[in-house]
């Protein structure tokens, strides 16, 4: 290990990774991305199968890309052009797996100190002690992973990675399955730790909520390509690309024509499809007559059996249930209002509204639940 204990100047992680598909596929590359992760949190977001974990494995050195270059600051860990390929042991990149991979036969303390074998015992003890305190693991230090709760295990896995003072940290959905409060408590500890170290942290997730909760920056990955990067609002909430809108969980993508702009109210009116329905949406860069696409999440639409009065939501559409699907905890209704909408509701709600195919229904959509998308 080099320069242990010295303050590290913040450096970005840059990764240009190409991975060839082993079998024949539509595209010659399974993964073809070029990303830069500045110090701090970056979320790597995408549906399962997008290549998120594969990318992390390449960066960590567990998988050899067919081509590209991976570096932290000026320190190159992989470069196909110069045949550089450091083994994971030499990369100094922390990696917390989804399964956490705590060593079951070692105590929390031994797990945390695992990566410190090269240090002298005194230094090892000091560092272990400090990180156990930072992640609130002192009381648990003699316990085995099997005796820990989910959140405690996650703390231990994070501490085990960070104690080695990695130059970058990769997190593969390590916080799935935790409730929101616990998750944010752990992330606060992680943020506090990183305020000092200032390393790039790349955190994989496929949950929108997690991006909203943690993301300062997000990279959207889809089918092995970068589909967008920026702030969560930029990338996911106002998706510019149709494909990304699907990635980000907008079930409704509706084509329409701008009718008029009401600039004082910050809205515009859009006619959907064959002008059978109208929506009020946030003002976008558009002029009357422009073709636009509106993205709405199925969970953002309300249904009412009777016409509601005096409502803050600006869009009230009349329609009929075209199809009803029971998906366990979730009901998916397709509502025909001239244009077809997909609506998610709970089973209980569907029962109470006595929904069935053909039931007349009112659809309620808030203006700001509608997002203007460009192809």
């Amino acid at each position, binding site marked *: 290990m080099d320069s242990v204990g010295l303050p590290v100047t913040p450096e970005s992680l840059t990764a240009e990774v190409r991975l060839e598909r082993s079998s024949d596929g539509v595209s010659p590359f399974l993964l073809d991305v070029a990303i830069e992760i500045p110090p701090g949190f970056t979320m790597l977001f995408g549906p399962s199968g997008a290549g998120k974990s594969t990318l992390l494995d390449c960066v960590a050195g567990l998988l050899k890309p067919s081509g590209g270059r991976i570096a932290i600051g000026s320190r190159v860990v992989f470069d196909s052009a110069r045949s550089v390929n450091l083994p*994971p042991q030499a990369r100094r990149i922390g*990696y917390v797996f989804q399964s956490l991979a705590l*060593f079951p036969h070692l105590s929390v303390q031994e797990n945390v100190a695992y990566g410190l074998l090269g240090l002298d015992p005194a230094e090892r003890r000091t560092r272990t002690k400090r990180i156990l305190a930072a992640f609130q693991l002192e009381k648990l230090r003699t316990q085995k992973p099997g005796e820990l709760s989910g959140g405690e295990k996650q703390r231990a896995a994070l501490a085990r990675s960070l104690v080695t003072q990695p130059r970058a940290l990769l997190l593969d959905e390590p916080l799935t399955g935790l409730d929101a409060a616990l998750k944010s408590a752990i992330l606060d500890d992680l943020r506090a730790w990183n305020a000092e170290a200032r390393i790039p942290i790349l955190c994989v997730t496929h949950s929108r909520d997690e991006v909203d909760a943690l993301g300062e920056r997000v990279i959207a990955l889809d089918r092995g390509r970068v589909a967008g990067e920026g702030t969560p609002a930029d990338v996911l909430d106002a998706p510019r690309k149709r494909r990304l809108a699907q990635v980000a969980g907008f079930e409704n993508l509706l084509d329409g024509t701008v009718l008029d702009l009401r600039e004082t109210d910050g809205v515009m009116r859009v006619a959907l499809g064959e002008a059978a329905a109208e929506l009020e949406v946030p003002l976008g860069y558009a002029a009357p007559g422009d073709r636009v696409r509106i993205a709405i999440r199925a969970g953002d639409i309300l249904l009412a059996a009777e016409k509601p009065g005096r409502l803050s939501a600006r869009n009230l559409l009349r329609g009929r249930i075209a199809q009803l699907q029971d998906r366990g905890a979730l009901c998916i209704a397709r509502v025909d209002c001239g244009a077809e909408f997909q609506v998610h509701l709970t089973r209980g709600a569907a029962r109470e509204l006595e929904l069935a195919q053909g039931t007349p229904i009112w659809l309620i959509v808030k203006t700001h639940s509608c997002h203007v998308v460009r192809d």
Partner: protein
Amino acid sequence: MESLWLSVKLAAWVAGILLVFGIPLAYWLAFSRWRWKFFVEAAVAVPLVLPPTVLGFYMLVAMGPQGPLGSAWSKLFGRGLAFTFQGLIIASVLYSLPFAVQPLVVAFEGVDRKLLAASAVLGAGEWSTFRRVILPLSLRGVATSAILSFAHTLGEFGVVLMVGGNLAGITRTVSIEIYDRVQSLDYTQANRLALLLLALSFAVLSFVYGMNRRVRRRVWIPWASR
């Protein structure tokens, strides 16, 4: 009783030697990606299906004064190998090899690969990972391996007869003595030794199975309820 002691001594030597050689071999079998690995796997398993007389025959030939093993041995130590206790050990090591290697391979392969990846990412090299993660998580496999090769050697007959002959105190193990007693119609003694061997084998195997019993999940199964 001399024969029983001889058998135990032989079995202990064989188990010890197999542990030393079996662990690296099993590690290689568990993790190597060599495409012809299956040949080695087959070779290791051969003693499982071969009649002991066949293995014993080839071992005897190899250990003879003209055989490669025998001539090398006499160059090194100045005496022959056939019909000696040392010869018996070498033959038994080969004969019990699969019993030692199989549990080790299963144990090594059973270690979660994510743990190995985690160890590598934390900076540990191959040897360090083996010593600190793989071996401690395979201790049951190591114990099973040692006990099975011990038990298997204790009960062997054919190979011992071929390679060792029947020399009291040198190569006459308990299984050979039982055969001897039956030949000379001394059923009482034969029965005593046979019963002892049976009880010992059963006890050893009970211990192995007990050690490796899976902890059942606490699921309510109607026909298992009391």
